[in-house]
């Protein structure tokens, strides 16, 4: 038995158990999706650092300990009050709360929605709208390409489902809260989200991952988002898992003609975090912006792999990623841009800036442009630097203490990304998180 088989065995056994007890009541199409998931997982196995896509991110700590899916809905230990702190200030918003991957109706609050909008848990959508879910689930995040997507496909319990019909605008932002508080170590949580925006639909949605435990757990999330013609979405994610956690997430955007995507990825939790974000620009006149901010310290590793696939002409894509690394932490940024042969007049811009606050922090940054069209504008730039001593001295010379001066500069560097959020209360909340973090409160709940 080789190493790989040993690693995946517990997962296969776990699936067999799930098959017998858990999902026998599910519809046939879903059972077959799950079976496909586990079979792909078996074929793919866990990647090692020999895989180009995982070169700098060693997931051995994840493979060493078999993580068991949380099949049981956790007994409600969280109170409404505990989740109140994660609100958008005075702004009203819909909130869907998932505890260890299971939807909590008691903690969620969904505002009245325009006619035809479906918003709720994926598990209930599978029952109430099977046709719609079946049409899209796994379409943009196929299990065949990615081990962790395959694993999620096999084991997911629940997640958010949002369907916005043609020309409908959802005014109030929607927040998806994923709270991890498993009772024992080694829990695996596999959230699965599906967002479908029909022609001309509009929404603002964000995912928040947070941990309320000190024990090791794995979040392995998959989100698929489809934007129809002229649809637009601002889609954010805040990863603030507990510092013993592992966070793997895949977000797949499928964009159609003249649609608009503004995406933010804020990542500062977890011992190891890997974010795969892919946007396929499958129509003309699309505007796609992927922004990100990662902040790591101690021995954290935060990895972003992004792909922007320009499949059609006349599209714009912009990417602004900033990283702040302290202690012995490591950051990885891999930004791939494909420009397909017929994607003429593509305008793609990518920037990745990194700030190393210690001598022992590391960043591996790699822009990767694969351009097969000739009439395009593609630029990229990556920088790695330290705080500007000239600027620190200037601030000091005005009476500002050295530590405060350093903090101001770090804050400014992070603010460059936070300021790109269009929704002010959201921006303010992240700003407040940032200020707290910079003042040194980095652990779990205090950090939010």
């Amino acid at each position, binding site marked *: 038995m080789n190493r790989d088989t040993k690693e995946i065995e517990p997962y296969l056994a776990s699936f067999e158990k799930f098959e017998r007890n858990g999902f026998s009541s599910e519809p046939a199409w879903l059972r077959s999706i799950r079976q496909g998931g586990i079979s792909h997982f078996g074929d793919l196995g866990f990647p090692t650092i020999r895989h180009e896509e995982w070169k700098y991110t060693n997931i051995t700590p994840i493979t060493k300990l078999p993580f068991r899916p949380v099949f049981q809905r956790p007994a409600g230990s969280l109170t409404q009050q505990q989740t109140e702190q994660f609100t958008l200030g005075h702004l009203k918003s819909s909130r869907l709360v998932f505890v260890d991957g299971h939807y909590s109706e008691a903690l969620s609050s969904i505002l009245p929605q325009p006619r035809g909008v479906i918003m709720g848990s994926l598990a209930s959508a599978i029952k109430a709208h099977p046709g719609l879910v079946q049409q899209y689930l796994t379409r943009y995040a196929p299990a065949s390409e990615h081990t962790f997507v395959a694993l999620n496909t096999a084991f997911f319990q629940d997640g958010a489902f949002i369907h916005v019909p043609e020309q409908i605008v959802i005014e109030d932002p929607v927040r998806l809260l994923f709270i991890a508080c498993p009772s024992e170590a080694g829990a695996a949580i596999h959230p699965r989200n599906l967002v479908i925006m029909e022609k001309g639909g509009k929404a603002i949605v964000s995912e928040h991952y947070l941990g309320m435990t000190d024990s090791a757990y794995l979040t392995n999330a998959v989100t698929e988002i489809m934007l129809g013609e002229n649809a637009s979405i601002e889609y954010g994610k805040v990863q603030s898992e507990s510092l013993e956690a592992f966070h793997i997430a895949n977000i797949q955007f499928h964009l159609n003609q003249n649609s608009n995507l503004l995406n933010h990825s804020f990542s500062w939790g977890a011992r190891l975090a890997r974010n795969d974000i892919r946007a396929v620009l499958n129509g003309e006149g699309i505007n796609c912006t992927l922004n990100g901010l990662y902040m790591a310290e101690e021995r954290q590793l935060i990895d972003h792999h992004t792909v922007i696939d320009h499949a059609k002409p006349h599209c714009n894509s912009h990417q602004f990623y900033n990283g702040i690394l302290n202690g012995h932490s490591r950051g990885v940024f891999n930004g791939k841009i494909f420009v397909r042969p017929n994607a003429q007049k593509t305008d793609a811009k990518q920037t990745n800036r990194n700030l190393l606050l210690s001598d022992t922090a590391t960043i591996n940054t790699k822009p990767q442009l694969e351009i097969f069209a000739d009439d395009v504008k593609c630029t990229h730039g990556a920088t790695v630097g330290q705080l*500007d001593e*000239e*600027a620190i*001295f*200037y*601030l*000091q*010379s*005005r*009476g*500002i*203490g*050295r530590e*405060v*001066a350093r903090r*101001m*500069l770090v*804050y*400014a*560097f992070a*603010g*460059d990304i936070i300021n790109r959020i269009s929704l002010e209360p959201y921006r303010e909340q992240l700003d407040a998180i940032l200020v707290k973090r910079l003042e040194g409160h980095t652990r779990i709940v205090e950090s939010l």
Partner: protein
Amino acid sequence: MLEIKNLVVGIDGRKILNGINLGVNEGEVHAIMGPNGSGKSTLAQILAGRKGYEITEGQVLYNGKDLLAMVPEERAREGLFLAFQYPVEIPGVNSTYFLKAAFNEIRKHRGLPELDAMEFLALVKERMKVLHLDQSLLNRPVNEGFSGGEKKRNEIFQMAVLEPRLAILDETDSGLDIDALRTVADGVNKLKRQDNAQVIITHYQRLLNYIIPDFVHVLFEGRIVRSGGKELALELETNGYDSIAQAEKLQAH
């Protein structure tokens, strides 16, 4: 107020200041003039607390305290201010936020209550008028995208807000057109009081047409070789620094 005694400073083993002696009292304006490379800017940087210099001899007393033992922020809180020759651009740090933080640090140090945002804004508006600065600059990051003249005026504006006891102006006139020069000089003059002092560092005499110094010192090869009244500046304007150089050579022989 300021007493520099036999200050010897080098960088990378090369001597730049070669035994400076200078005393500045309250209510005085001193001008330090000298050719390029004479050590003028080094002196200013040393006084403000920049790292990277080797101070091998001498002492600087500021209000009786050992200035060189203080970190830069402490010097600023004690009332020392350097108007930079090249003000630094700080992207992402809002000008008002920065200045309010600095202002309140100094207030705290002096045992005065901090000003809130409204009070501070009122103060800032009043001081801006003196420098003819456009208020929109305050909403921008510190010095970012400012023109050369705006940067210099912004330095003097900061001085107007922070109200230092000892201001050192390092080549504040360089890169200014005549109108901007007048505005800046006018601002500096208005800030002069009986209980503070100013040290103007300049290569050219023209700034001293607008800011009249009580004393003029000539810095040459790291030493003050001549001191006198305001007429010394005019003499230099007429004869140039060459005459000083020649006089020095003669003396050396």
